[in-house]
Every structure is written in C-alpha cells, then in structure tokens.
C-alpha cells in the first residue's frame, strides 16, 4: 500500500511539473489585473482586446495559412516517402526521411536561411512555408510508416490477384487503409508548424510575423494578460488536434517516443 501511495505521489509531482505552468497561463488569461501574473477577479476582457488587436490577428492568420500549406504539402510528400521506404527497402532511405526529427531546430533554421539566401529566395511567407514543409515531411512519414507496417502486405496482392491494376489497388485498398494514419500525420504536421518558433524566426525575414513570433515580441516588452489569452487559445487548438490524432491513429503517438 505504501509503495502504491508513493507511486501516486511521484506521478502527481511529475504531472504537476508538466501542467501547473499551463494551468497558470489559462487562469491568468481570465484575470482582471493588468499584470499577467496577478489575480484580480474574472473577466473576458483580454479576449476582447485580442479580437481587436489587428497585428496579432494578422500574425495568427499567417500562422494558419502557413500551417495549412505546410501540412497539406507535407502530408502528400510524407505519405509518398513512407510508401517509398516500404517498397524499396533501402536502408539509408528511412534515415534520410527521418533525420530532420533529430536535427536541432536552430541548425535547420540557420541552414535553411543560408540556403534561401544562396538561392536568392526572398524571405517571407513563402520561405517559411518551404521551411515548414521540409521539417513536417518527417512527422507525416513516421506516422504513415507505422500504419503501413501494421498493414498485411497480401491485401494489395489480393487486390491485384482479383483484377485490380496497380493504380486501382493503391486507390481502393492502400489509400483507404492508410487514411487514418495520413490524417493523423497531417494534423501532427499542422500542430508542429503552427507553434514553430526557431525555424520560423530564421526564415521569416523582416516583414513577416507568425503567432509564436508575435507572442515573443510582446513578452519582450511585458507579460500582458493578452499573451495569456492568445496562449490559451493556441493551447486549446493544439489539444484538440492532438486528441484527434490519438483517436485516428493511437499507435502513431506511441511510435513518436
């Protein structure tokens, strides 16, 4: 019994360490105080301020556009990458596809910046999208691969055997069976893109800003409750996405570890 109690206590401390900071942010986003770190009664004031903050809304809009474009493109390329690594069974291929997962963001950010400058790509929305596509592909590929690994290879052979061309076999069997994995991979890519800071920071150039960049600029001045409000919204949307992923492809999140 004592061991069990100790286990629960340890778990409680661990989860508190992870979630208490987030809870504080959510709490203070409803605080009437002008300081981001003091409680002075409940209000929705900061959410109203947020709705009228044109710069913040513009940054959020940019983030959503970038995340949509990046996750859509990465979903296509990542799925193709997963199919290719399965089909050709080359040892270096999965390594090349998944390497961005373990490369430090700062390194990716700097190298992409140098790359864009060398190619004379104007920094802005498009360069950020390209950068996000490049690191999102790996996330989609790993989720789709885990789904693919659980698929009986004789299913596609059976389709061919029963009269389906290679294309029909893909369209009628492979794709529908991979669909939950592809969706989950796309959502994961979306969440990775929408809250990315480091890579975006290096590839956005001077004029372009996204939600995480905007929040960072704001707290350099002071932690206002508006930052808490926007963080709460960001957190809520991320949570919804992660829950959807775990629902669509429960094994995908396990494979991430």
């Amino acid at each position: 019994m004592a061991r069990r109690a100790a286990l629960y206590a340890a778990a409680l401390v661990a989860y508190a360490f992870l979630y208490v900071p987030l809870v504080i942010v959510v709490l203070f986003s409803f605080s009437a105080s002008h300081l981001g770190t003091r409680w002075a009664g409940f209000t929705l004031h900061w959410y109203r301020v947020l709705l009228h903050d044109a710069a913040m809304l513009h940054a959020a809009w940019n983030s959503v556009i970038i995340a949509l474009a990046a996750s859509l493109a990465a979903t296509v390329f990542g799925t193709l990458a997963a199919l290719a690594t399965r089909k050709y069974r080359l040892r270096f291929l999965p390594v090349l596809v998944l390497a961005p997962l373990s490369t430090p963001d700062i390194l990716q950010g700097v190298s992409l910046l140098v790359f864009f400058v060398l190619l004379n790509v104007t920094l802005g929305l498009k360069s950020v999208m390209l950068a996000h596509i490049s690191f999102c592909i790996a996330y989609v590929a790993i989720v789709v691969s885990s789904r693919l690994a659980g698929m009986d290879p004789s299913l596609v052979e059976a389709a061919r055997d029963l009269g389906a061309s290679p294309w029909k076999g893909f369209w009628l069997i492979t794709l529908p069976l991979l669909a939950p994995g592809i969706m989950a991979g796309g959502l994961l890519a979306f969440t990775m893109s929408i809250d990315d800071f480091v890579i975006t920071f290096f590839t956005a150039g001077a004029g372009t800003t996204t939600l995480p960049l905007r929040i960072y600029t704001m707290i350099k001045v002071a932690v206002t409750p508006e930052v808490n409000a926007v963080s709460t919204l960001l957190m809520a949307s991320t949570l919804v996405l992660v829950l959807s992923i775990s629902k669509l492809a429960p094994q995908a999140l396990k494979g991430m570890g």
Partner: protein
Amino acid sequence: MALLEIRKATRRFGHFVAVREVSLEIEAGEFFTLLGPSGCGKTTLLRLIAGFDTPDEGRILLDGCDITLTPPERRPVHTIFQSYALFPHMTVADNVAFPLRMARVAHGEIRVRVAQALREVQLAGMGERLPQELSGGQKQRVAIARALIDRPRVLLLDEPLAALDLKLREQMQLELITLQRLVGITFVYVTHDQGEALALSHRIGVMNAGRIVQLGAPDAVYEFPQTRFVADFIGTCNLLEGTVRRQTGARLTLEVSGLGELAASARTPVQVGERGVLAVRPEKVRIAAQIVPAPGEVHLQGVIHDQLYLGDVTVYKVELAGGRLLEALLPNSAAGVVKFFEVGDHVDLAWRAEAALFLHD
C-alpha cells in the same frame, strides 16, 4: 495439353535458389498439391504462378499461352492467402463483389451473383458484416467465394487451413474436396502438412530445396517413396542403412550392420555394393509375442523400449540387436484389452520383403 505448364522455372534471391529448374504439368480439373517443409520453395512457386513474382529463368504457360510476364490482374488465376487477405474496410458483400467490379460487370448482375455466391458458401444474409466480425471458418468461406465468383481457370491455395483448429480443419478439408469437384476448377494447393496433402489431392508434388523430388498420386507417393527424404517427410518410416549384397530381379539382399542380411525390394535400378537405406513403414511391421515367419518375410527379434498410446493405435518402439530402434504400429482392435505389450517385453517382428523398399541415399 496440360492446362498449366511450368518449364524449367528458376527463381533466385541473392545466392539463395528458392526454385530450381522446376518443370511441372497440371491438368484441367486437377487437385494438385505442392508439399514440402518450410523454405522448400513451394510458396515461391505458387507466387510465380499467381504472377506476384517472375522467374529468373523458365516459362509459365496457361492453356498454351505464355503468361510468364503477365501481371497478376490479367491472369485468370486467383489465390487464397494464408491470412485470407479480406479487405477489412469493405463488407463481406463488397469483398466478394471485388473481382466483378474490377471486370466492370453491371451493378444488377453483381448483386445477383454475390447473393448466389454467399448462399453457396452458407453465408447468406452475412453480406453486410465486416470481415473482422466473422469467425476463422467464415473468413475462409468469404475468401473462397471471392476467389471463385468470376470462375478463374486455376485457384491457388497457400496453406489456407493453417490458421484453423484441428476440428475445423478436418471439416474444411472435406468442404474443399466437395467444392473442387463441384466447380471443376483446377486447384493448386500448398501445404507442409502431409496428412492434408494425402487426404485432398489427386496428385502431390513433393518439394525439397527448390526442386520437385517426387510427383505422383498420394498412395503412390506414400507407398513407394523414391528417396530417403520423401520416405521420412511423408508419414513416419523406419530407415535402416545398409549395403546391397545380392540382387535377383526386383528382390535385393541388404547387409545391415548389427542385423545381418535382410531382404528388400527395389523399384529403381540398383548396383551390387551400393549403399542406401531400407525403408519400412511402421504399419507394415507385424509385431507379436511370437511369429513363425511366412516365406518371403523378414524376421527380427527385439525388446519393447518405449510405447506411445494414441487411442486408436499404439506405436511401439522396439530395440533391436545392436541398440537400433524400430517403430511398429498396432491397432488397439481387441475388445477389453488396453495394451498388448509393456516396456521390457520380448517381441518378434516381421514384414514382407515387398514392404521394405531400398532407397538411394
């Protein structure tokens, strides 16, 4: 002309030769079984016929047409997979309808033929279920219905009963025999289970190390194995190593160390002085407390070393002179008697010389 003809097919994977110059003719309406241990190349050969793989050398002909390089979707050949490979996101009816959809058969006709096919495999009314809601035997039937709905020329079956439990397996064996007779489609069946092969097939091709080592009707393969491998792989067989001393026609005299000279028969040309094995099946060995040998019978004496009670029969392991063990099988046919012998009993053994085959090593 044979329906399916394989001419000197070879398939290599790196240095490993999975199928080695296999030539084979299978007739229309035949139930043909490829039997062999795992890794003998039987599944690879099946995949060459299905078109999932192509041979490195050799040709495959169907009805006299070369189909060696024809993709699987354009061969009138279907496969029943070991895992059944039912499409999990489609209902039973959609699974069965799949070949007809691919062939662009009209919707109305598809509905009629699917209902008919499901009735034939006793799954009427199950069309709207998903495969994962079915039992193993039902999945098997859906796979069969799906593979036969567009009447292929050849049906390939890759160990289709391996996943079922014993009782169901026996029942499905009988169903498969009935079904094959009913539809008259050529079946090529792959299994490592010799009992299944003997029970189901018109002809068996025994495979080992990429080759077909013996081809024939089940009784011929069982009664007259041509090699030590076949004798050992199909059923159980007592194998005594020896040297040929004398030969008169088909009758041989073999010198077996520790046992002296034993009579045997040969079905292939033999040279005096050649080494080989004497093969005799346990059920051909007579075992009794005392045997007066009949003319033409081989007679030995031994001590019961071990016994294996199987209910209907008992297998006795008898120790011969020189410590060699020989198996003899005795039906437990006497009423009221549980066992005939106990461990340590002295017994006589005898078998007819024709039952003892000389096999080359």
